[in-house]
């Protein structure tokens, strides 16, 4: 893992080359390994080691960006040359808020040496165990087990230097039987917090319960959503409207709902990068300290997160939500989302449902209309019919077309347990409970 001293030396080398212009260097270094399995066998097993430098150079209000993953002298010279060339070709950017001044960061320890040192043999042994458990049931296990160590540093010519090293681990699996499948996932910054055997058994149990699925008519159903489905709701609402840029452009679900009771009083959502129950990161990708932001409080829409561009436009302070360079065009993003737990167990939610569906997760969800966060998508890996407060039978996958805002307005119960889930992009995590929703709109079913 790139140390703080080496990160400081490398960023310093770049900044020195940029003088007399102002400049900012973002350094992202990481070692990541992933073991992938299918049909009860490992079929892909990979490792990566990389260090990326992204330079933002400012000349007379003109901004040029360049990046490289090489760090020899010639490559750094070339990096600065390209950034300078880009700045000189750009017209002055009237919206550029300038580089951040030196900041104070509250350190948070989220680097776990045992996760960083986790070996391919350790991953393989755990995967082999999960495959054996599936095989014993006549089922097949599929999935991926990832361990990573990551360092993020931001330095600029005004004196900012921020460094944070962290680790993360994620295990996700589908177990399939002849006519059913089950899903389980968990994420953590300490690999020791992942219980692979328990996750394997969770997916196996779902596959067991999912046997002999029946086709049902689409329509309105009460639903009990596992945390995996709730994760999709929060990340979709994040991408399509928790950032100030989307609100300022009038395309967010927050527009016309700010400070209004738009959701159930049981729903509270916030972003907090300092909470060790998430994947902590004390500053954003410009070096602004991450602030806790209340997004929805007891159903009232409180407001979006800000980066420096959107904050300047609105005359407020940035909240530290500039995303990584690859997602910069989306504007600010919440990256460490939490939804408040309630006091119900999943069993209680099911017991209180006369007729409804238990849904494990959503799949391939896409925005159909932004202002209500109207989404379509499929269910996947475990849908169960609830009748008279009990699981009655398994159901074939359904397509829904549903406003996520409206769905959260109809939350009736919230689970007491939460689960940390790392998004596919690796940039966003959520810690979410299960929820029960009074009405959810299904518009189709699959073969």
């Amino acid at each position: 893992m790139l140390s703080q001293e080496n990160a400081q030396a490398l960023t310093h080398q770049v900044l020195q080359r940029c003088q007399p212009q102002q400049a900012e260097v973002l350094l992202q270094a990481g070692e990541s390994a992933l073991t992938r399995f299918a049909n009860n066998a490992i079929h892909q097993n990979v490792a990566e080691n990389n260090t990326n430098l992204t330079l933002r150079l400012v000349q007379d209000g003109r901004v040029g960006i360049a990046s490289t993953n090489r760090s020899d002298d010639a490559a750094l010279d070339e990096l600065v040359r390209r950034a300078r060339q880009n700045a000189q070709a750009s017209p002055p950017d009237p919206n550029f808020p300038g580089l951040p001044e030196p900041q104070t960061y509250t350190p948070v320890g989220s680097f776990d040496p045992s996760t960083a040192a986790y070996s391919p043999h350790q991953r393989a042994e755990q995967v082999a165990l999960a495959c054996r458990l599936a095989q014993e049931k006549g089922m097949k296990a599929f999935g991926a087990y990832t361990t990573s160590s990551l360092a993020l540093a931001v330095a600029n010519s005004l004196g900012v230097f921020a460094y944070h090293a962290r680790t993360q681990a994620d295990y996700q699996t589908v177990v399939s039987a002849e006519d059913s499948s089950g899903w389980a996932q968990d994420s953590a910054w300490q690999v020791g917090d992942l219980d692979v055997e328990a996750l394997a058994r969770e997916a196996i149990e779902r596959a067991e319960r999912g046997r002999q699925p029946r086709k049902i008519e689409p329509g309105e159903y009460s639903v009990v959503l596992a945390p995996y489905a709730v994760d999709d709701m929060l990340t979709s609402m994040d991408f399509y409207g928790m950032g100030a840029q989307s609100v300022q452009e009038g395309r967010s679900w927050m527009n016309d709902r700010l400070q209004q009771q738009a959701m159930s009083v049981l729903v509270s959502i916030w972003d907090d990068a300092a909470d060790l129950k998430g994947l902590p990161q004390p500053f954003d990708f410009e070096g602004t300290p991450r602030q806790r932001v209340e997004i929805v409080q007891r159903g009232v829409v409180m407001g979006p997160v800000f980066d420096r561009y959107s904050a300047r436009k609105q005359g407020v302070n940035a909240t530290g939500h500039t995303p990584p360079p690859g997602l910069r065009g989306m504007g600010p993003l919440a990256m460490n989302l939490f939804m408040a737990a309630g006091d119900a167990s999943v069993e209680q939610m099911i017991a209180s449902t006369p007729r409804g569906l238990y849904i494990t997760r959503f799949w391939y969800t896409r925005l159909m209309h932004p202002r209500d966060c109207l989404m379509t998508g499929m269910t996947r890996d475990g849908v169960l019919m609830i009748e008279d407060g009990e699981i009655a039978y398994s159901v074939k996958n359904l397509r829904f077309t549903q406003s996520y805002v409206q769905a959260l307005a109809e939350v009736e119960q919230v689970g007491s347990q939460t689960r940390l889930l790392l998004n596919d992009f690796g940039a966003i995590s959520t810690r979410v409970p299960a929820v029960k929703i009074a009405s959810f709109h299904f518009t189709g079913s699959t073969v």
Partner: protein
Amino acid sequence: MKTLMQQAIDTAVQRGASYADMRVVQNRTDAISVKDGAVEALNSGESYGFGVRVLADGAWGFASSRTLSAQDVDQVVAQAVEIARASALASGEKVDLGPPVASQGVYQTPLQIDPFEVSLEDKLALLMAADAEMGGVQGVRARRSNLVFIREQKWFTNSQGAFTEQVIYESGGGIQATAVGEGEVQVRSYPNSFARQQVTGGWEAVLSWDLPGNAQRIASEAVALLTADPCPVGITTTLILGGAQVALQVHESCGHPIELDRVFGSEAAYAGTSFLTTEKLGNFQYGSPVVNLTADSLRPLGLGTFGWDDEGVPAQSTPIVQNGLFMGYLMSRESASKLGKTSNGCMRASGWNRIPIIRMTNVSLEAGEWDFDDLLADTGEGIYMETNRSWSIDDRRYNFQFGTEIAYEIKNGRLGRMLRNPTYTGITPEFWNSCDAVCSQAHWNMWGTPNCGKGQPGQVAHTGHGAAPARFRNVRVGLVR
């Protein structure tokens, strides 16, 4: 380069690998985006590194690094072999790669104007001109435009004697206007959805799209959509799709289900599986007799056009659906062997730090015989939709629901009133069997999909899809207010 790579392969074999390959990739990507008359980003990125894939103890291992010294290469080779040995703790069937691959040669994307030789000033002037045209339309709330240029040089070698060198150029870009009304947001993009058409080729491709010449029209359509009538809800009608939407329909409902790794379960925990299971090969009526689909990595301009895939297999053309009958898969060496076939060259990695997986090349709907105006006249009544806005399909690629940016009523054999928030839904084989007309070569275009996600760790592939407008009968449309 060749000597260093050969040493790596020799080291892998000495360490016990029964097969090894290595790719060195150098990628340069220049991107410009303009938002509301200001430069949003002017970015020049470079990435360089190598990946080594080995078979040891009958299992796969892959390791990669950004530093290409002899010492680092040795270390990464050792890591790849160690990982393969760990994989062997839970290995499956014996890997059979089929016949050896020993390709040799050099390939470069044909182009007229190297986009990296065009000045930044000229590129910015093009975007600013388009932005100004959009800005002249009253009611437009946000304007975005972008250009992207990629030059990827890669070297490949393996333990069976292959050595190839390729330089692939891609050029892309587009414009987008957003209009906001009372509780309504509408977006129009050009030439393709999300303001991104992309091809293998040079600056000449970008010029051919005439972004400034289409900007005012796009912006006016976004504003007009705010007050257009909504798409009828829940009706079944005749649907004509524009070429770009047909291309995405092909991508999602044909391109993905013919990936043989999905069929064998490799993506079951992530991207999903496929309804096109192997017993259907040669026996399944995927579409109507007018439906002919081809996977072809030789087609000009396609984002899936190259010299060799990332296993060194030469570019080629494969019939996928002939007169409606399902005839072929996208295959790797290993998956093809399981079917008793040889690879048709579909293994690609998104970079040096990713393992090759089966990806679409250019999966295209072959042109039919219809002129577009004749097709409208023949249709009489129905709906025409174009430019994708949302796309969703189940994990076996059966049930899909798509939305487009714009639609028009077809009335009396002509395009009539504009319709907003159009959507349609269906089941893949039913939908393609309802296709009764495809427009002619004059309306056929090679569309680019530069955002195809698959694999873990995630890989974004660039795929091509040739398509022309096509007609589908008895389609359920209208699922949004």
